[in-house]
């Protein structure tokens, strides 16, 4: 009840610089439960950086974060920038955000099943048997039940990415974060991964997804955000952003991508 009424994620005015390079210049994003937000934009526009600020793999210089019912606490450090003040809170929030990386990042010294149960068992302290049951169900869902005892090195890229999606799902994340989940894949493997992501969207999972798959973004998103040089240049339902963008740059980007 309490959470239903509030958005799963409210991020306001995020700034981030690397040295003198301003990568994010005040980006805000709100995602209600069940929203699928696609982030598009040209290379270097700050898409990954923004996504990584949401789970604090990058520490933003400025911004306010309301995630999964919690306001992130900040304090100003000695360098004059703000830092999250409570590492335990960051860890707790991260375990409620499932992240899927472009390069999968499965742990090669563990089998697929071990990869998937690692966080439930060791971070969330779920009982091992229950975790295995759930992990096996998730692996079946992404079509990898047969591969559960294999090591990541023996899987194709598409299988590894599906395994990493199962790993992210196994903590019951309130929001899923995807950073170009299909960009590292051979073209013939893209489809199987998109199929899994689409099924998650259809289940009503809240997802933020950086992607170059324009057609897919158009199909599954409830909202599309176009970033340009660290700023939101255009945001709205896919029909608007892809069909009738108001920003000239967005128009250009979409025209360039559609052939």
């Amino acid at each position: 009840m309490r959470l239903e009424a509030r958005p799963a994620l409210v991020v306001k005015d995020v700034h981030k610089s690397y040295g003198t390079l301003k990568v994010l210049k005040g980006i805000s994003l709100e995602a209600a439960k069940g929203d699928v937000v696609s982030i598009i934009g040209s290379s270097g526009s700050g898409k990954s950086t923004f996504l990584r600020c949401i789970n604090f793999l990058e520490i933003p210089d400025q911004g306010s974060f309301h995630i999964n019912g919690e306001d992130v606490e900040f304090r100003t450090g000695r360098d004059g920038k703000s830092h999250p003040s409570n590492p335990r809170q960051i860890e707790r929030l991260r375990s409620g955000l499932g992240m899927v990386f472009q390069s999968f990042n499965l742990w090669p010294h563990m089998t697929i099943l071990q990869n998937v149960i690692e966080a439930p068992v060791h971070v969330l302290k779920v009982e091992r048997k229950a975790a295995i049951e759930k992990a096996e169900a998730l692996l079946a869902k992404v079509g990898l039940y047969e591969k559960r005892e294999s090591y990541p090195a023996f899987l194709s890229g598409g299988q590894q990415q599906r395994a990493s999606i199962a790993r992210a799902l196994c903590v019951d994340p309130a929001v899923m974060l995807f950073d170009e989940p299909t960009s590292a894949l051979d073209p013939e493997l893209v489809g199987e991964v998109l199929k899994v992501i689409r099924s998650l969207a259809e289940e009503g999972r809240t997802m933020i997804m950086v992607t170059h798959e324009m057609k897919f973004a158009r199909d599954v998103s409830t909202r599309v955000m176009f970033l340009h040089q660290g700023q939101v240049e255009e945001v709205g339902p896919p029909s608007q952003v892809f069909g009738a963008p108001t920003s000239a740059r967005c128009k250009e980007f979409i025209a360039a991508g559609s052939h």
Partner: protein
Amino acid sequence: MDFSWIIPYRELLLNGALLTCMLLVISVVLGFAIAIFLAIAQVGNNPVLRVAAKSYCTFFRGTPLLIQLWLIYYGLGSYLPYIPGLKGSFLWPLMREGLFFAAVALTLNFAAYQGEILRGTLLAVPKGELEAALAVGMRPSMVLRRIWLPRAIRIGLPTFAGEVILQLKATPIVFSVTVMDLYGAAYKIRQDTLLVYEPLILVAAFYVALTFLITQVFQRLENAVPARR
């Protein structure tokens, strides 16, 4: 070839072989444990620990093991009696033996080499794997324990096998502080029997056999996580 001395000297030989194995196992196990701290200190962000670990590794890798052994045996050995409380402790009889100082020197030396190797393999673990661990909510100590260290150790396994073999072959140096290891036994037999080659051949065969065994053990460890080649 005359190997008739084996029977009368079997006890000396057996004890020597046991001592060699013991020194190897102790120095490898304890040395490796110390190496983990040395490696973490070197890649961590505490400047004091980093410099301390770096200096340690540089010193022990930069000086001959023989000199380290003698420094510890004669130097440290002569100061120990002045440490209050030590003389009465149960450790004291142990600390008057050359064996104790030999084990300490071999351990410290091994730790320095492994600490350096492990530092390198820690840095060789892809950053994305650590980010994935952080992203599921692990705290840094858990990332280290569950992902970073196990991965670094596995990356280093082929190198570790070679290092343990080198360590085995460094052990005869302990004879210089009166420890009767396998080499010491051979030395004594040569003196007693005036045989030049036979005792050395037997000892060499033993070292080869042990090297083979070490190779096998590490092969097993490497195969524990199948890799695609």
